[in-house]
């Protein structure tokens, strides 16, 4: 493995940041503004993509921006795990930008300039988090992301979003300042470094009780991962416009949370260290509880986006669970799930948004028979749902497969049981939607049988993501390779 | 509040008592304070600065920098009184006195309806005739007091006194003028603008002497660097004299400014 110094990671982070002033200044010309967004998104994606071959060759790219303290610089490091995440996020940003044009203009929303600007900031922070070389940098981007998404979440500026925004901040900032920051400083105090490394940074300086506490501080501290009991911000944040929910609460924000947890487990503690203390079980237990409880709650939700939110909470815990299994296959599965779930879930959110734009409805009980009116949307929905449930022929199957393998590899039958049960629950809360959309009696149907899809800019993106979900079942190699390389770095190397 | 005060007083007093137990006896010639630095000052000052008054030597030369800021503090105080109290708003009520008869007029309107001149004078609300005896005695004394004040300023390095004391005395003489006649007499004689400029100029003389020394290639306030201009002889004493004059100017002006502003609530019309 070679370390290549290159400014590309920084550029990838900065490109959307630098475009912000342009966005603000062209607030009166929406088309120009949107154009710039696309340009920036594309450049970003290409930058990320251009680093892919290097990573696939087994090398890593590093770049140190500034030195703060020994072992805790603001530095970037592109490794397979980060690469995978960045790839997903930057690709989906373009799609979502397109979608948000359709959505926002379709609804005639106010403050669109603010919306795109903070969107750009948020995606910058996401990429930054993906490329972080150490915990400090990760924390930095984590916080920026939290704050950048606040105006997005509270976009409507009404009483409802105010309450939600408050809850969002309370959970996200409270946990990050209250738990992650001390935990991070504790680490630094003990080891004098925060650099991620495959073998972890602790070498016997930590007793088991301390390690447990520290691990829990991290796991709960990254509340964006939605681990119970710090999950309730996520359903609350669904008051945001759907593109926000889609990109941020299916991909960027929540994935940064789990990504951070995976990073900490693999990079700070190290798989071996955790296995030696058998701490994986603790995390896995928490994750399983979250999976089961959230799936159960999702069953009872009538609001489309809230159901998706609870689903997300459960799915995120899959990833944590995968990492916590501490077995190569499990970790691979967890990582893959970051990507797979992202494509699946974003499709679902797009669908919810498209329905809202077209019909103004957001409760599932009002959507009986909608399949006839919006067939394309609902087909995409089916693919997304399948991916989430983990059924072929979608990408979700691959990741879940690896997770199952991981449980077997670790000989943890309880976890296997959890996975299977939750898959059933997933099916139980997604399938009725689809069923009622298409297979309802004409009397029950609430819509005329006339195809009346959402604006094109809404539909195209969801078709794209659905297709990708589909394609990933057949061609998971890019992500699979990346995940495998990452795992090799954590365990083998 | 009284109880709080009492407790704080007891605590502080106890602390100080505790610290005092170990002090050297009062007037002990061998205490560190009387041996470490003071010996150097006493034995070297006359030779180095040519000022027999050691206090002035230390004040205006060794620690001249302190004194500069001390003057700046005085300047600051004068400016403070001006800023806080000066009231430029026109008076609402006017009082006039008919000079030949001594009849007082009170005009409640803002407009000036009475023309002042030989017959009518501007007066104050609380005007009382000034006392002939006080007025006459003060009239005679004031110039002597002033020459004395100037003497004190000029002899700072031979005898006690110096710019500050002289300035205060000069200022008091002007205040005495205001008290014995009335405030307007003073304000007419020493205008506000003059005082304002003078107070700045005084400090400016001090700082300027220091800054020019710096320009001549020495450290700030290093009077020795003036030797090429004024000659080696008594150059430091000369520097001190210049500095004392600056202090005197500033202090004089500031004392008058403070007095005028306080006594007339910033209106510069009536006073004690």
């Amino acid at each position: 493995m070679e370390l290549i110094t290159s400014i590309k990671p920084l550029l990838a982070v900065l490109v959307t940041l630098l475009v912000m002033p342009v966005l603000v200044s062209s607030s009166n010309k929406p088309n120009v503004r949107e154009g710039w967004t696309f340009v920036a998104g594309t450049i970003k994606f290409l930058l990320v993509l251009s680093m892919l071959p290097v990573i696939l060759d087994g090398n890593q790219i590093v770049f140190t921006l500034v030195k703060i303290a020994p072992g805790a610089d603001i530095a970037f490091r592109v490794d397979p795990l980060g690469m995978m995440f960045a790839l997903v996020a930057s690709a989906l940003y373009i799609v979502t930008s397109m979608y948000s044009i359709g959505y926002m203009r379709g609804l005639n929303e106010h403050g669109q300039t603010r919306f795109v600007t903070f969107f750009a900031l948020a995606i910058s922070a996401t990429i930054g988090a993906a490329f972080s070389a150490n915990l400090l940098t990760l924390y930095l981007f984590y916080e920026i992301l939290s704050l950048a998404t606040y105006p997005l979440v509270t976009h409507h500026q009404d009483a409802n979003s105010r309450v939600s925004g408050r809850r969002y901040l309370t959970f996200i900032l409270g946990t990050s300042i209250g738990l992650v920051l001390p935990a991070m400083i504790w680490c630094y105090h003990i080891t004098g470094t925060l650099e991620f490394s495959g073998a972890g940074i602790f070498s016997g300086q930590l007793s088991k009780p301390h390690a447990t506490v520290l691990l829990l501080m991290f796991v709960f501290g990254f509340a964006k991962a939605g681990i119970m009991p710090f999950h309730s911000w996520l359903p609350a944040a669904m008051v945001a416009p759907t593109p926000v929910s889609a990109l941020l609460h299916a991909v960027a924000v929540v994935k940064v949370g789990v990504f951070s947890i995976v990073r900490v487990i693999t990079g700070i503690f190290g798989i071996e260290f955790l296995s030696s203390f058998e701490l994986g079980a603790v995390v896995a237990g928490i994750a399983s509880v979250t999976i089961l409880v959230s799936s159960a709650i999702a069953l009872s939700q009538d609001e489309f986006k809230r159901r998706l939110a609870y689903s997300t909470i459960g799915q995120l815990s899959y990833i944590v669970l995968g990492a916590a299994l501490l077995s190569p296959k499990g970790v691979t599965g967890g990582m893959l799930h970051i990507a797979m779930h992202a494509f699946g879930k974003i499709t679902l959110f797009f669908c919810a948004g498209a329905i809202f734009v077209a019909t103004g409805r957001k409760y599932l009980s009002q959507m009986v028979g909608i399949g006839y009116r919006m067939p394309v949307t609902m087909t995409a929905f089916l693919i997304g749902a399948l991916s989430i449930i983990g059924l072929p022929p979608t990408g979700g199957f691959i990741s879940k497969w690896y997770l199952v393998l991981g449980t077997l590899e670790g000989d943890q039958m309880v976890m296997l049981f959890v996975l299977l049960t939750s898959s059933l629950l997933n099916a139980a809360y997604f399938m009725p939607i689809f069923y009622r959309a298409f297979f309802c009696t004409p009397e029950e149907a609430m819509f005329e049988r006339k195809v009346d899809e959402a604006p094109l800019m809404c539909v195209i993106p969801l078709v794209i993501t659905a297709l990708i979900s589909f394609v990933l079942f057949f061609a998971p190699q890019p992500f699979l390779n990346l995940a495998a390389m990452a795992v090799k770095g954590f365990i083998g190397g | 509040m009284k109880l709080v005060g009492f407790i704080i007083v007891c605590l502080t007093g106890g602390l100080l008592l505790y610290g005092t137990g170990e002090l050297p006896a009062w007037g002990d010639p061998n205490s560190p304070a009387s041996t470490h630095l003071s010996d150097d000052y006493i034995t070297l000052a006359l030779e180095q600065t040519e000022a027999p008054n050691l206090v002035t030597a230390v004040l205006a030369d060794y620690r001249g920098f302190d004194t500069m800021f001390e003057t700046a503090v005085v300047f600051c105080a004068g400016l403070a009184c001006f800023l806080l109290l000066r009231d430029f708003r026109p008076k609402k009520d006017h009082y006039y006195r008919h000079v030949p008869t001594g009849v007082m007029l009170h005009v409640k309107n803002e407009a000036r309806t009475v023309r002042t001149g030989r017959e009518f004078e501007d007066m104050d609300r609380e005007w009382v005739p000034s006392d002939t005896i006080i007025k006459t005695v003060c009239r005679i004394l004031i110039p002597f007091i002033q020459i004395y004040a100037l003497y004190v300023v000029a002899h700072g390095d031979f005898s006690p006194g110096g710019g500050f004391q002289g300035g205060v005395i000069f200022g008091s003489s002007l205040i005495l003028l205001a008290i014995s006649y009335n405030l307007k007499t003073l304000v007419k004689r020493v205008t506000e603008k003059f005082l304002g400029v003078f107070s700045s100029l005084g400090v400016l003389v001090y700082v300027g002497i220091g800054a020019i020394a710096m320009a001549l290639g020495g450290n700030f306030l290093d009077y020795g660097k003036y030797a090429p201009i004024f000659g080696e002889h008594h150059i430091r004493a000369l520097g001190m004299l210049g500095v004392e004059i600056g202090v005197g100017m500033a202090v004089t002006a500031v004392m008058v400014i403070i007095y005028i502003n306080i006594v007339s609530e910033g209106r510069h019309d009536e006073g004690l």
Partner: protein
Amino acid sequence: MPELLDLIVDKYNYWLYIVLMMIGLYAMIGKNNLIKKLVGMNIFQTAIILFYVSIGYKKGATIPIIQGDHGHGAADAVIKAADYINPLPHVLMLTAIVVSVATFGVAMALCVKIYQRYQTLEEDELRMRLSEK
């Protein structure tokens, strides 16, 4: 007992300065009238000056102005340090006095300003007026 007496007699200046200072401090905190407080403040500052001047005092020494024909030519004579009182505390206290009078002037100006506005100088009455608004 004699030692205690010695202690008291040797340093009576210091003891009394503490008493003076505490009077000032008490007036500053405990008095209700603003001008009384100011007087307390001045007493407090004077007490410190007393302390400093007491430090400078030296038994058997004369005032810190070199004797002689107004200084000129006196440099020939040997100046003995023990003959003169320490000038440094005096210098410091000159500055301190000036500072205290400057503060006093400003504080007086403020009192006048407050009186203009509220027609009282009593702290409790001021507080009442403020809370009325």
